[in-house]
């Protein structure tokens, strides 16, 4: 941490500051402004104070009911996909081949869903899941399972969740893989000499080493799934009924569908506040981990010895062990 203090650095940051301020602060100000007013069209605005916020948090009103219901659905959705994607991602990361061309091939295929436009992810699952033309829907129905995501709530939910697992598990897997790769070979050899079981290696070496990336993965996935809009919008359109209407979909309905500026703005602010809190946790984790890493690197400069140096004595040990 030997950065020099230099206030002139602000000149270097200024362009970023201006660009982001233009596209973040300015619009946010209008949102704050709207959230305190009511409009009856014709660009006539009336002061409403905190009325919208009160309504928003009161489940007996229309606005509050819709907001809290979509919030509940969204939180449930986030929890379910985290509960599936995190363990699955770890398993996939542990299943990565060790060397050769297969590593690159697996990485490329894993990364593929991450780079597909979100609306096309929706389209892919729409086409894949339809009972009449989709492979998945057709096979399920042929197997005697009555599956139709357009009309059945549970099927719609399952489709949206499987779609998210398909779309994002790779990210968790790739992050975990990056964490696993940073474990020095010597750790495994030490474990082998100690006769540690497969499970013990995972618990004592791999999991602690993946701690940081896992935390990043969980927070990233939570935030992104909490803001999900495009994929369910394309596949289910928030339906059937309101069963897959998440917060973003509800917000866009109110803002751009009904042009209810005051309600939408109040909802936006509360929504943004939740994200901001999670984001702050994320930031603290990131910067703490960064500082930790630096301290570690400074205090033990030789923490990662050259593999060849360590390998030789262990390789020499092995036959002896066998004899003994």
């Amino acid at each position: 941490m030997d950065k020099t203090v230099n206030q002139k650095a602000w000149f270097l940051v200024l362009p970023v500051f201006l660009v982001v301020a233009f596209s973040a602060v300015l619009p946010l100000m209008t949102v704050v402004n709207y959230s305190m007013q009511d409009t009856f069209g014709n660009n006539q605005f009336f002061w409403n104070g905190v009325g919208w916020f009160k309504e928003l948090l009161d489940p007996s009103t229309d606005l509050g009911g819709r907001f809290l219901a979509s919030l509940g659905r969204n939180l449930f959705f986030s929890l379910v996909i985290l509960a599936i994607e995190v363990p699955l991602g770890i398993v996939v990361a542990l299943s990565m081949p060790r060397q050769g061309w297969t590593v690159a091939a697996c990485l490329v295929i894993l990364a593929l869903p991450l780079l597909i436009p979100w609306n096309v992810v929706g389209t892919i699952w729409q086409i894949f899941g339809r009972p009449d033309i989709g492979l998945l829907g057709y096979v399920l129905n042929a197997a005697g399972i009555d599956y139709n995501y357009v009309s059945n709530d549970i099927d719609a939910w399952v489709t949206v969740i499987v779609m998210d697992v398909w779309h994002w598990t790779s990210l968790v897997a790739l992050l975990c893989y990056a964490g696993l790769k940073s474990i020095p070979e010597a750790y495994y050899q030490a474990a082998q000499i100690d006769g540690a079981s497969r499970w013990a290696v995972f618990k004592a070496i791999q999991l602690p080493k993946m701690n940081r990336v896992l935390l990043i993965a969980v927070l990233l996935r939570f935030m992104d799934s909490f803001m999900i809009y495009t994929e369910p919008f394309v596949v289910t359109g928030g339906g059937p009924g309101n069963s897959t209407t998440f917060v973003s979909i509800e917000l866009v309905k109110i803002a751009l569908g009904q042009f209810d500026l005051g309600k939408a703005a109040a909802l936006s602010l509360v929504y943004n506040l939740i994200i901001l809190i999670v984001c702050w946790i994320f930031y603290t984790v990131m910067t703490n981990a960064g500082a930790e890493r630096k301290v570690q690197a400074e205090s033990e400069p030789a923490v990662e010895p050259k593999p060849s140096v360590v390998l030789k004595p262990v390789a020499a040990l092995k036959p002896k062990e066998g004899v003994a």
Partner: protein
Amino acid sequence: MHSIPGRRLIMGLFLIFLLLPIYWLVNMSFKTNAEIVSTMTLWPHTPTLQHYKRIFTDESWYSGYINSLEYVVLNTIISISVALPAAYAFSRYRFLGDKHLFFWLLSNRMAPAAVYALPFFNLYSAIGLFDTPWAVALAHCIFNVPLAVWILEGFVSGVPREIDETAFLDGYSFPRFFIKILVPLIASGIGVAAFFCFMFSWVELLLARTLTSVSAKPIAAIMTRTVSASGMDWGLLAAAGVLTIIPGALVIWFVRNYIASGFALGRV
């Protein structure tokens, strides 16, 4: 010791799970609509290129790709060029409010697009940029500029400070040092940051759709319009989808080792 028993099977099954829906999309794009609707076939029995031909010859379709590319490229250029000096400043200096600024940037990267859809609509209508590529390019800066700053900061921090000092001792002015020495040194970082700006702008739908109506309509919005129309043209939709995957698929090989790091804002 490293991996788990049955790893080949697990990996194989997972990769099939990932590839099957994509295969189905590609499969559909080569089928005639009659074949799609009437029978369930695992591969196109009467393969056709009619959907691709339609997209490449019908202006209302191919203009969507051009519009998308226009704002994506604009956005990438803006994001990288403003982020570079800032990344250097964050990496080398301490200044008033630097940590708050860094957090503020991150919080914008994470802000839900739905919150900004309506105010952006008002803002860009008011300044006369609505339905131009500039509106979408500037709107996407809200998440791409912070992303670029965070990623580039990591790469700049990897350049030893001695290089700066030597350059300044040799009489390099700051702009000259920046262009002649720093930029070539972090060229791969700039490539990675540019790739992610491109990608995140390319995959975004909500803002791009809200800020355009006719002349700058992106391909993603054109696709959703087709979905809602009665009597869906599934083959055409599938072909359009396949074409949007191509930019990502083309560069995927070169960035395969950076994917995780890019999504984690260069912090892994």
